């Protein structure tokens, strides 16, 4: 959260100040990247950059505070996921061989990576019972911090429908929580 300084940062970003864009990126990019990873986007880092490119292009049309800015960025990210999924269906990309990726991979903290992978595996096992719409609602709610009306606007659904999807998703998660390994 940027907090009270957000209007100043936003105004500076509109003028092209590098520090302002760095501030915006460091505050919102991790959540956007997490949302894209949770949505199983094939190249979440590239997609994150595209989300911010869109923000650069359309910042002149934005009006609002920090919470609205966060919602706006996640709406953009959600639509980028949909567009990326459609474009990949039209032009399938053959993935690189595992050996090539392993050779190019940078070294890191093995323990952290293992924990991260465990958490992701846990989450994915929880999410396996959810419909795609229920998963979108939960991810936008938990990771994006969007309200039900904001999610409804992003998904093109009524607020009541979003609330119903949310309740069903939570009920399924509570039911599946007992059998998921933690």
């Amino acid at each position, binding site marked *: 959260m940027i907090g009270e300084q957000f209007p100043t940062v936003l105004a500076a970003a509109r003028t*092209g100040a590098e520090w302002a864009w760095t501030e915006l990126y460091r505050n919102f990019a991790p959540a956007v990247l997490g949302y894209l990873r949770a949505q199983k986007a094939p190249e979440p880092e590239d997609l*994150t950059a595209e989300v911010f490119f869109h923000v650069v292009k359309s910042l002149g049309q934005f009006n609002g505070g920090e919470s609205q800015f966060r919602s706006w960025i996640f709406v953009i990210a959600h639509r980028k996921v949909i567009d990326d999924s459609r474009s990949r269906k039209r032009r399938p990309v053959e993935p690189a061989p595992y050996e090539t990726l392993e050779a190019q991979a940078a070294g890191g903290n093995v323990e952290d990576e293992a924990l991260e992978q465990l958490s992701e595996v846990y989450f994915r096992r929880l999410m396996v019972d959810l419909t795609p719409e229920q998963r979108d609602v939960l991810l936008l709610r938990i990771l994006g911090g969007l309200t039900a009306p904001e999610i409804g606007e992003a998904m093109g659904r009524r607020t009541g429908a979003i609330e119903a999807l949310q309740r069903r998703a939570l009920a399924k998660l509570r039911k599946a929580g007992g059998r998921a390994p933690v």
Partner: protein
Amino acid sequence: MDGCAHDVYQGEMKSLGKLSEQELDRLFSGKAPAENSGLDDISALARKVQSAFTGGIDPAVESTHLAALMQRVNLTEKGDLAAMPASKVTGPGLQASGLPKLRRRFMLESLFATLAAKIAAGGLAVVMAAVPVAATGNFPDQMQTGISQAVEKVGIHIPAGESDEADEAADDSQNALDEAAEEATDAVSDGDGAAGDAEGAADGDTEGNEGNEPNENAGFGQSVAADARDGGVDGQQVSEAARAQAEERKAAGQAHRPENAGRPTTSPTSPAPANTVSPGQKGLDKAADTPAASHIPANVPGGRPAGAGRP
């Protein structure tokens, strides 16, 4: 067992349905739920999801993204957007000078579109303005004919230029004029004959009045032709009227013509009008009327005696 599980699911749905939006916000943000709400598991789940997916970004990725972002910011200020994925950005690229290609293309397209629209609108305005005027036939003949032929091709009929009708009427009136002139010439001839007559020596103007009629007929024909060109008079009617008038005049001329009219005048006492040549005059007669009459030889074979025919 399935029925029991379903009942549990329905119970959970009911309990979740009672949650307010604020309570759900607290749960999804990972904050502790209200006491004894039985929703600790959901709050814990939200925290796990956030910790799993909202870790930091790799510094290398962050620097790459920020470089690409600033490149976009700087280029966007000039209006040029680079289509380059962040993973392929190695550094700030060269900025394009002037307007970006996209904007230039759009400007050209809009310019041509505007020109085409202007030309089309101008043409339409000219047609819309010309057709009503042309329908009333107020254009000059050639222009009226051209517009009539042009709009005839698209199924609109407006009167052509008056040239055809005027020409037709003018032809008729010209025929009438010719006939009138012919009649007038006859009348002049008759008048000359009468002038040479003995009994008309004193009042040569009685028949000579007919000699003035060609002018009147010519004036009549000209007025008819002018009326025909204006479209105010039907040429056919004028032609018939002119014929009738000519017939009457011919009949009247026959009635006034003396019996020896048209014959050569041989009487020395009948003065011929000056500078008029009678149809029956011979060469010596004409020569006798000239100033060189005194030089005419007296004995000319077949000729008349000197002094004959002098006034």
